[in-house]
């Protein structure tokens, strides 16, 4: 073959392609959000007798009262944490679809620990509960990673299946042995006063853990970009063949990112418990696992960008709640909006994945 030395047109072509890709991905995101909003507006127009009012409260409502605004921020906390968990896993090309079960199990673990030792000092109890929740989440997700390393089981499938089973087990404990007979709801007894996170924005439920979540996002960014583990994890995520060739233990990085991801989910579960609900309800964490995936995809797996992405998701929810209270629409509106976003964002991400695979095959 005759090699041709013509790097410059080649390089400019690559740059152009890259710019086009960037453009398409950011316009793609704007388009996604635009479509989601458009669908919400159309639904309001169809379903509401007072669409003007509903639309106003949907978009502006969350900013009209401290209560709404604070609750919106509060809702973003677990989403930041699960979003981080997913971002770490996806960055490393491991896929954790078991966030729901991991978060729920984390919430249960924290509950059990705090109920078992109601007289511990606040900070000790909180720390113990957090560690317990993180460990159980990390274990559940790490298991999928381990199966993948050992037998090549797809983590996407195994984490989902394990989680699906775990949810039922946790349900059993919450509604069976740990059920609070005094409450008419399916929930455990409440945790002691000293374990509840400090609320900082009365009358809303916003608590101090939002600062920790934000700090964790920054910490995760630093971890991924600058530390030894983060570097190896990213390298394995981008190109496993290259990493193996260069001497990185690639098997380890099928397990570690999953465990970290599970740890974040467990943490999210325990934070919801100690910050918002104070007792483990049946299905207390429902949705934060799946929404974490959407948050991470919107953030393009960038830990810092997870914060605005989580806020955006919480905003959709808060808007729907405000619209519900002040007009005649129901909260399902937000769910539909979130579902549309989830659908479009996932489609976009999968399309990118599909394209890169196709390119690999063609080469």
């Amino acid at each position, binding site marked *: *073959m*005759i090699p*041709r030395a013509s*790097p410059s047109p080649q390089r400019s072509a690559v740059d152009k392609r890259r710019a086009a890709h960037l453009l398409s991905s950011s316009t793609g995101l704007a388009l996604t959000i635009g479509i989601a909003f458009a669908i919400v507006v159309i639904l309001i127009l169809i379903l509401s007798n007072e669409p003007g009012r509903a639309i106003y409260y949907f978009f502006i409502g969350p900013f009209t009262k401290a209560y709404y605004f604070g609750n919106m921020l509060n809702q973003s906390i677990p989403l930041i944490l699960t979003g981080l968990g997913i971002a770490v896993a996806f960055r490393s090309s491991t896929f954790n679809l078991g966030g729901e079960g991991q978060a729920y199990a984390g919430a249960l673990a924290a509950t059990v620990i705090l109920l078992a030792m109601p007289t511990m000092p606040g900070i000790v109890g909180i720390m113990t509960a957090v560690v317990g929740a993180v460990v159980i989440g990390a274990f559940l997700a790490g298991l999928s990673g381990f199966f993948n390393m050992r037998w090549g089981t797809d983590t996407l499938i195994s984490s989902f299946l394990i989680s699906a089973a775990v949810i039922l087990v946790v349900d059993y404990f919450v509604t069976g042995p740990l059920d609070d007979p005094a409450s008419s709801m399916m929930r455990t007894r409440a945790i002691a006063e000293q374990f509840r996170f400090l609320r900082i924005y009365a009358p809303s439920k916003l608590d101090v853990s939002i600062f920790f979540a934000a700090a964790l996002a920054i910490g995760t960014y630093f971890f991924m970009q600058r530390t030894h583990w983060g570097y190896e994890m990213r*390298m394995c995520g*981008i190109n496993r063949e290259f990493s193996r060739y260069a001497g990185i233990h690639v098997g380890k990085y099928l397990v570690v990112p999953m465990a970290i991801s599970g740890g974040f989910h467990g943490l999210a579960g325990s934070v919801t418990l100690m910050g918002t609900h104070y007792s483990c309800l049946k299905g207390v964490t429902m949705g934060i696992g799946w929404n974490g995936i959407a948050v991470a995809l919107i953030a393009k797996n960038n830990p810092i960008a997870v914060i605005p992405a989580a806020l955006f998701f919480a905003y959709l929810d808060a808007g729907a709640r405000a619209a519900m209270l002040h007009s005649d629409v129901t909260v399902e509106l937000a769910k539909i909006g979130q579902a549309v976003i989830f659908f479009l964002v996932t489609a976009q991400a999968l399309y990118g994945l599909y394209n890169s695979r196709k390119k690999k095959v063609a080469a």
Partner: protein
Amino acid sequence: MAYLEMQGITKLYPTSGVLANDAVDLTVEKKEIHAIIGENGAGKSTLMKLLYGLERPDAGEIRFRGEKAVIKDPLAANRLGIGMVHQHFKLVPNFTVAENVVLASEPMKKGLFIDRQTAIRDVGKVIEEHGFSIDPKRRVQDLTVGQMQQVEIVKMLYRNAELLILDEPTSVLTEQEIERLFETLRSLIERDRTILLITHKLEEVMRMSDRVTVMRKGRVVADRETAQVDKQELSRLMVGKDILLEVHRAPKTPGEPVLELQDITISVRGQERPLLDKVSFQVRGGEIVGIAGVGGNGLAEVEDVIGGLRRTTSGKVILHGEDVTCLSPGQLREVGLAYVPADRLQRGASLPTSVRENCIVTKHHDFLRAGVLKGRSIREFTKRLIEHFSIDAAEGMRAGNLSGGNIQKMILARELAADTDFILFSEPTWGLDIASSQFVYERMLELRERGAGVLLISSNLDEIMGLADIILVMYRGRVVGRLENAEALSKQTIGEYMLGLRDDSPCEPIASEVRRG
């Protein structure tokens, strides 16, 4: 008017800058078996892809049955009556033979349902007509490799292909199956079909073809009647004339062995022939050992074994006196391995990340303070490499934005920075321009001068003959020749070893001679 005429066919792959076909002319007469031979990368597969519509030519014209043909995809090729049997079969394992054959042109019932009975009957008819022996109702996954190939041929015949392209059809077949295939091809010729046979096996060309076109480096170098050439001449045409590289190799007495392979064997279940068959050799300090061979004869496997990326069935690898047979790539690097891989875009570099991150990957442990990477010393280290190896790049640039030559320089810089006494180069100049190649050669000679052992795996005979002190030739997973690179050694001799015409290996059993026919 010839049956098929390809004129001035030119194809450039812009991403790698490789001119795969350079004004290629090919003329094929009706009812002939026309062989196209050449080394890997000679451009024969590209030419066939253009003919079958898998790629579009940048220039040139195809005339089929006297008419200008624009073949934009395989379906268009099928419509014209051109069919291709790929080297790697494209079959659905859990479909039946008939289902595979009719796939994408299924006979329909009431315009909605697939007419299975008709499919089985029609396919059965094609199978019978051509004397095949496969049951159209069997699932493809239950067939032997030879039968799967028959299914592929039947698929083309079912689509009324008159011109059949067979890409390396014998590479996966046993001797008996090869015999069967040859009979099939003959009977196809009697039925007015025309066959284009792509191969690099001289034996088959001599036995089967009426005409042979030899390609080298994207060009046609010869077009002959098979009856008028012999194997020696073909092999000479394939490898080309001796070209002296502009490198100066000072005489040097080699030192202690740094790498030794002892009887390395890799057997794969279900395959008759091992991928590597008792491969033994050593590389001493201050010498360059070159391994030559046509692709698919074990070169890639040797690379993988030494790189620690592939487990061996038996045998030992000894590096710097230590048994490293079962060590991981990371552990090997600690013992003292540097390795420039053949696949530099997937294995040797991580294109979406920065040059910096590419440069530190093998030694990032050295840049840690309490588990955190030291940004400044990494930047300085990378800048030093960039300067030292005159890489046209900035340290923060995405590696994928570099040209092919600069990516290779980056890999080279990283591997040489490890400062090991053994280094493996696999296809180090593939696709590089002259200047970059020269740069690589100079670095290799510097290593030799410094007393390091260098193993050079390459399908480029010119560079092996220009650089190596010892030349090993591999054929079918075995080392068939170990030659001192002296004046008297000609390219033709090496070529004959490469193509299995010569064999010095002691363990060559007579049976395999018979098998090769």
